[in-house]
């Protein structure tokens, strides 16, 4: 990580870029980054915890900046609810530098939160957490009949699907007709 490289460079100025990260890592003070979700609440996350997220890790891996700069410019994730982001941050902190256990019982059981979490985790590319979440989603329909599954996961029936498709086509047709009329008006 960039922050680690920075720390290393101050400890060994003669070879700032070639010092082995793993050897120097324990001596380097941990650096932190800041993220916020839809609610604008800023969460402080250590670089080690953020390594779980391939997206954030990828974004920051080639940049080096001070803690003050990072604090002043938190990463905005406007599409993630604040409580969901808090869950993700908590999970990353809990599993920082640890082998991930085969099961995670702390994941939410409610459908809405779980799907939000799945989507957030997919967006942030947190592989292990995504595996847990998918398992949890699958558990929601264990032993359920097709009707129950349809209800739990809000899967539309084929008839509802067809009706929605027709409606969408109709709307698209109307919009296209409106645009054509507007273009003709402009031309005149």
């Amino acid at each position, binding site marked *: 990580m960039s922050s680690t490289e920075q720390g290393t460079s101050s400890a060994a100025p003669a070879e700032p870029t070639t010092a082995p990260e793993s050897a120097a890592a324990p001596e380097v003070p941990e650096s932190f980054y800041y993220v916020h979700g839809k609610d604008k609440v800023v969460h402080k996350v250590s670089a080690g915890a953020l390594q779980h997220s391939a997206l954030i890790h990828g974004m920051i891996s080639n940049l080096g*900046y001070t803690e003050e*700069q990072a604090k002043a410019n938190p990463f905005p994730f406007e*599409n993630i609810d604040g409580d969901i982001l808090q869950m993700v941050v908590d999970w990353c902190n809990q599993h920082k530098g640890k082998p991930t256990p085969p099961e995670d019982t702390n994941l939410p059981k409610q459908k809405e939160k779980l799907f939000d979490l799945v989507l*957030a985790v997919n967006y942030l590319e947190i592989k292990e957490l995504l*595996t847990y979440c998918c398992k949890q989603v*699958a558990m929601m329909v264990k032993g359920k009949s097709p009707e129950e599954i349809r209800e739990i996961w809000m*899967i*539309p029936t084929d008839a509802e699907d067809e009706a929605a498709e027709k409606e969408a086509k109709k709307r698209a047709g109307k919009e296209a007709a409106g645009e054509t009329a507007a273009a003709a008006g402009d031309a005149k």
Partner: protein
Amino acid sequence: MEPDLLTLNEQTAKLSIDPVYDTNWCDVPNEIKVRCLEKLKFRERLNMRATSKLSKCQIDSLKYKFTFALFTQKFDGFYKLFSILLGSNREDMLSNLKETTEWMKYILKIGVFDRLIFNFDKFDANVNLTSGVDELIDARSVDFMQSNPDFIIAMLKNLKPIDSFLLNANSNPHFPLDKILGELQVQQARFIEILNLSAPHGLQKVAQMWIDKDSKVGNLCHCSSGLEDSLASFVNWFNNSIIYRTGRTVRIRIPGSSKNILLDFYETNELLGAFRMVYRMEIVLNDYNDSEEISYTRLEKFLLEFRHQDSDAREYYESDEEEDGDFEYNEFGHRDYGDAKEKSRMLMTKMMILESTKKRRRIAMRTRRENETTSLILMKENYF
């Protein structure tokens, strides 16, 4: 550094302009749906498949790993698929031959099998289970317990390479062993087990097939035969290649090769003789230490699994007990259905005979068998 950071934040903000996620299954990206669906057990997949056309397509595009799949007809005379995969409460799905065939095709299409067993002595040979299946069936081990030879050959042609192959020749002297040994899947199998072989020269045909196809060293064939002169016939066939011969063992060399084949006639009673044949690079003193374990455990396991599977059937039948009256169960837990079920039980009878000839070993294996029973129960729990 500062401009980079600002650019980064702008990029992140751009990424974040997507609408806030909804919380329905329908709004989940397809790749995540696939990951979730892959974690569903088979029953749940079937239920999910029935929710909508789209779900059906998604489920059908996924493979499912089956530890064990037994396709057999029920003992009530109807052509029905009874498989522990589906469970006894799935009988309603299998109301006729056509429907059953469609289900079997479906399972064969989406399945990746550790062990696949067919047991259809009355199955209509005209029903081609593999028609409409555009992919080869993926199975590590395939057993044909009671099957029409044409069906066996058709299935073999539609299999990916297999490790292990079991065949019940059903004491039929006209059993087309040559045709079956001509199939690539059999030739490449590491372990061949042939029950109730009565076709003349059966053992030497397997040995000759190994020689002709230059099969891999370490291949094993386990064979039970009703022919008293099988050993003598084998000796005559390979008369010029014998390295040594004892009362129950013959070892032959393969011309132009350091490989050799050992035939061991290891148990007998009034009905069956059992042979093991092993294909080796070098002569070793204890050829069967490992292979014997494999063969015996396999046979034992089948019996245990069959009993286990039948206990499911028994539960199902017991629910109709009042209508059907009282029935007797034989020692394998099979319900006694009378003469019409005779063929279906013959296999078990024969295996019982084979088993009874191994009393000494059975005593020694008792502890192990108990352990196996436990592991089978665990395996069954894993199915669902």
